[in-house]
């Protein structure tokens, strides 16, 4: 009996499935029912920590049947979590997410239909210190930084203003990395907290070196706190940013902070210096670096995880290191926000005075390679061999250098800037000329292909004080606009500068 009932029920259900659906439906295109954003977002936004970020998109229709969300996804920074920073149409947000570059997504949903529309933009978050020029200068036997913020406001003696103290000695270099500094703090109750992937700014004079937090410029570590074992001699020769942290040259020895998840913000033991005498220059590639031994007149490669320098590992088509050379310049070529691409070196042969320019690839040092290529022998009459300060045009990447020009800018220490184009081996004289009573002490091309940073800076000295000229480039050419976009000045003798940008992870 039970079986009969079951079969009857199944038959009824089968029969009903054959009935034609005669319902009257109206189909509408998604565009017709989806929310419409009338005034879209801009291509990018910059925000300063703890200040208000207001974005007010206009909707075709609004009301209680709409809901909104603003999502911030960090780009290339895995230590920062995703976040929802708004739930209303108008974003009015006190910026508390960490410094970095985000994809910002605005989402509007019509709850009646469940349809949504999205718009995407880019959001750069930084502190007030996250964008601007850091002029390293010396005054009255002390070293400090004059900071020019994004509004063009000069903040002289930044380190002393923030921390109450500058550094003894003559300024040498500074370096910044946005996300490779790990350190620990211990509060009054003895509780230790480990901070991960923090921004750090390192500044050194010829007598001292200190570590500052990149967001607020507060002192993190003094010299005695900045090493796993404090060196016997305090004689800094320079600090450089690397893809893994920082490299310090001190008393003719190299120390690294190389982030591997365990670092506590302290430089390690110095690498063997042997009979080398380092020039105070370096080309950085990822976490490795290329330096120059003035004794033998040759190049050396170091990588933090390898305990001896690379001196003689070359591809077969190069087959030699350079020896018995005088180093005129060694510098990295700016690339995207993450790393440099190749580097350049200019050398003069101590035997025949021949000047050579060549590219090298410090990236490959960590792969047990130390690669030179594309050597250019400088023809007589070309003045680059007389240069005192140099920089190169940024751009390019590891697989192609088409995005940037193979151009080296230089000055002989007077008031003029010239450039030499390796592509056609032609020199352009007097690309920029400063007033006759000024002396060029540093030049710099801040470049980021992805984030469209493209600024040429000339730092000059006049009567013991500094002047900074920032120039736009002429289109996509290597030429510099003759008239500066901005001019700044301050007191103290300048040595060099770095340019920080919220989208750029490290400075060279």
């Amino acid at each position, binding site marked *: 009996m039970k079986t009969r009932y079951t079969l009857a029920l199944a038959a009824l259900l089968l029969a009903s499935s054959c009935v034609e659906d005669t319902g009257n439906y109206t189909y509408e295109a998604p565009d017709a029912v989806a929310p419409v954003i009338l005034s879209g977002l801009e291509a990018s936004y910059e925000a300063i920590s703890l200040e208000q970020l207001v974005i007010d998109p206009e909707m075709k229709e609004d009301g209680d049947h709409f809901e909104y969300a603003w999502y911030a996804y960090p780009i290339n920074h895995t230590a920062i979590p995703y976040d929802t920073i708004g739930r209303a149409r108008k974003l009015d947000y006190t910026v508390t997410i960490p410094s970095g570059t985000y994809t910002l997504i605005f989402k509007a949903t019509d709850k009646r239909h469940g349809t949504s529309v999205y718009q995407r933009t880019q959001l750069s978050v930084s502190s007030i210190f996250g964008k601007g020029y850091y002029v390293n200068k010396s005054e009255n036997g002390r070293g400090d930084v004059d900071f020019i913020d994004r509004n063009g406001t000069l903040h002289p003696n930044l380190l002393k203003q923030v921390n109450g103290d500058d550094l003894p000695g003559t300024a040498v270099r500074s370096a910044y990395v946005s996300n490779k500094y790990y350190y620990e703090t211990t509060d009054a109750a003895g509780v230790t907290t480990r901070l991960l992937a923090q921004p750090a700014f390192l500044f050194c004079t010829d007598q001292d070196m200190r570590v500052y937090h990149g967001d607020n410029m507060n002192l993190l570590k003094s010299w005695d706190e900045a090493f*796993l074992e404090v060196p016997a001699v305090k004689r800094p020769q320079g600090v450089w940013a690397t893809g893994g942290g920082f490299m310090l040259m001190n008393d003719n020895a190299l120390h690294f902070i190389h982030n591997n998840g365990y670092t506590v913000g302290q430089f*390690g033991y110095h690498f*063997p210096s042997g009979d080398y005498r380092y020039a105070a220059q370096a080309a950085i590639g990822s976490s490795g670096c290329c330096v120059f031994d003035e004794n033998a007149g040759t190049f050396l490669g170091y990588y*933090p*995880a390898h*305990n001896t320098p690379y001196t003689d590992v070359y591809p077969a088509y190069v087959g030699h290191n350079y020896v018995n050379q005088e180093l005129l310049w060694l510098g990295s070529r700016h690339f995207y926000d993450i790393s440099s691409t190749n580097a350049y070196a200019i050398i003069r042969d101590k035997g025949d005075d021949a000047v050579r320019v060549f590219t090298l690839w410090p990236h490959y040092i960590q792969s047990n390679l130390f690669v030179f290529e594309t050597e250019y022998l400088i023809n007589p009459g070309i003045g680059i061999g007389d240069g005192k300060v140099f920089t190169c045009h940024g751009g390019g990447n590891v697989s192609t250098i088409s995005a940037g020009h193979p151009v080296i800018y230089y000055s002989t220490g007077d008031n003029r800037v010239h450039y030499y184009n390796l592509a056609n081996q032609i020199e352009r004289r007097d690309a920029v000329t400063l007033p006759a009573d000024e002396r060029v002490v540093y030049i710099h091309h801040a470049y980021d292909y992805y984030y469209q940073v493209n600024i040429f800076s000339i730092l000059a000295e006049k009567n013991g004080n500094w002047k900074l000229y920032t120039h736009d480039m002429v289109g996509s050419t290597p030429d510099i606009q003759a008239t500066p976009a901005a001019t700044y000045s301050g007191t103290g003798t300048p040595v060099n500068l770095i340019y920080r940008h919220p989208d750029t992870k490290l400075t060279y």
Partner: protein
Amino acid sequence: MTRNTTLNTLLLAALLAGAACENTVVNRYESPASLYFYRGGSQVDSTSYSFFFAAPSAVEDTLWLDIRLTGIPAGEARPISLVQLNAGETNAARAGTHYVGLDDPRVAPALVLPASATSAVVPVILLRTPEMDTAAFRLALGIVPDDHFVEGIKDRASFVISITATAEKPAAWDRYYDTAFGPWGQEKMRFLIEHVGYTAFDESLANADMRVFLNLKAREKLAAYEAEHGPLYEADNITRVTFP
């Protein structure tokens, strides 16, 4: 609710209320007291001690053993009957030579479970001898019953100490140390202690930064040592001390 049900409910409540007013009788723990070697933290059933890690001038060092009570704490201090179990056996440590006798005035007064205490930490003073540069001596200690304590937990009534001045390979060496220092050797370890200043061999050395730091320092210190003294060899005079 019927009248009977109501009455039954009230009766049950009255019974429960009455029972709640009775005094609770708790059974007291009255087993005899005993002692045992605690196992926990860094203390297990035995340990090895090497004067290799002590300063070259060190002639004695003290180990502290954690002894615990089962039973009721007493109102007065009670002596702990600690004895050597392996006296006279081959390679057994000798009282007065390899360790300070347990009846010695420096030790005996400390072999006490204080009043009201449930545990005591007692000293064993180890003495360095030249024999220990090549041999290890075994000291098996036991807690024996006496007027105050009955026999305790059987497998925790003894504790063995191996005493030597030779180096022993740290347990973590093959996992992390070898990347910083290469294959283990006694003279290599002595060099690390005396010239590199590293003694924390009980740590894992998982920190890659610290491994690079120690490797660089060891290489530099060894180069300086060899420049003054020539190559350093292990005891076989064949295996040269090197770092990768």
